[in-house]
């Protein structure tokens, strides 16, 4: 089942300290305050290691906005689990380097539901 509205996926990167905790907290708070539907996973790396079928489901359900880490890493983590992220329908925000405000803004921006085809890092 696919949808034209982009789904929001948040990765908590639970097993490492490479994403600043204050950024993670702020993004979670922002998503909760916005009262939007979103999915949050403890750790995309863990899911990829286990070949979690959820990654294939997420990749096949239409436009996707992901708050995680470097887009190149996210893309190939999904691939490692047999999930092809659809080019042109996915945007990835890198919580390792981008400020929380920019991540929240991007995730909640309803004007670009289909994404601009960018699996590359968003420049600020």
């Amino acid at each position, binding site marked *: 089942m696919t949808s034209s509205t982009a789904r929001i996926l948040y990765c908590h990167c639970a097993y490492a300290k490479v994403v600043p905790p204050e950024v993670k907290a702020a993004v*979670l708070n922002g998503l909760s305050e916005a*009262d939007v539907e979103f999915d949050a996973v403890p750790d995309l790396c863990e899911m990829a290691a286990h070949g979690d079928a959820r990654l294939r489901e997420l990749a096949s359900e239409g436009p996707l906005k992901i708050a995680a880490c470097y887009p190149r*890493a996210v893309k190939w983590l999904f691939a490692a689990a047999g999930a092809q992220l659809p080019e042109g329908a996915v945007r990835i925000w890198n919580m390792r380097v981008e400020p929380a405000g920019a991540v929240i803004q991007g995730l909640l921006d309803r004007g670009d539901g289909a994404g601009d085809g960018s699996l590359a890092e968003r420049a600020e």
Partner: protein
Amino acid sequence: MSSADRATLARLLLERGVEVSCRPDAAAATGDPSGGTTVVVGNFGGVVPHHGLGVRVLDAEGVDLATLATTIERGPEVSAGGAPVAWKPWFPVIDYSRCTNCMQCLSFCLFDVYGVSADSKIQVQHQSNCKTDCPACSRVCPEVAIMFPKYRHGPINGEEVTADDVRREAMKVDISALLGGDVYAMLRDRSVKAKSRFSKERDDERALKERQTCLIALQKDLDIPPEVLAALPSPEEIMAKAEAARVRGLAAIQAANPDSKV
């Protein structure tokens, strides 16, 4: 639930390894098709909505969030024994847009993390064998195709690869010296020469010091954690593994390119 409570509960659950979905309509929740339990949490004012099989409903009203998170994590039955040991998901991730299937990583890794797929492509097959915090194999990849998303520095952490990164990889330590063979042969040669110059007796202490010196140099170059070096197999095992991996790699390359000479 207030947005602040939702965010706090979500964070507590994520830190416990529990997936969270936020939906405005609790009644829309369905069971997890993979067989896991879905728990619906909200402030229901004592009137718990009905759900189907595989869905458990918890009323959060008046319940401490930390207690709620623990209740959700443990499920209907409290498991005996301590909390599960969390595995830090540390393993190589291959960027196949850069990978040339050269099999260097297969040859280099001593812990059988890599394997070859049915169609002769290099693959990460045993993620849990990978030694936590060791990114050594990424440093021997000539195409900068191996990532460790939880590593602190780029491009190994997944940053886009620059021309400088590729140039730096071209000057890497010769892989043949890292397979153990040349290093140990060098140590044996030096030990033999030392013996003939100074003594006819074995000098194990000196050989050990030289081995440690070489290993320290390797550790710095490859950023290998000390505990990984301490757990290395014996030189004979290293040689056997390297030779076996070399044969597998050559076979895979040959299968993928039958017209080429390897």
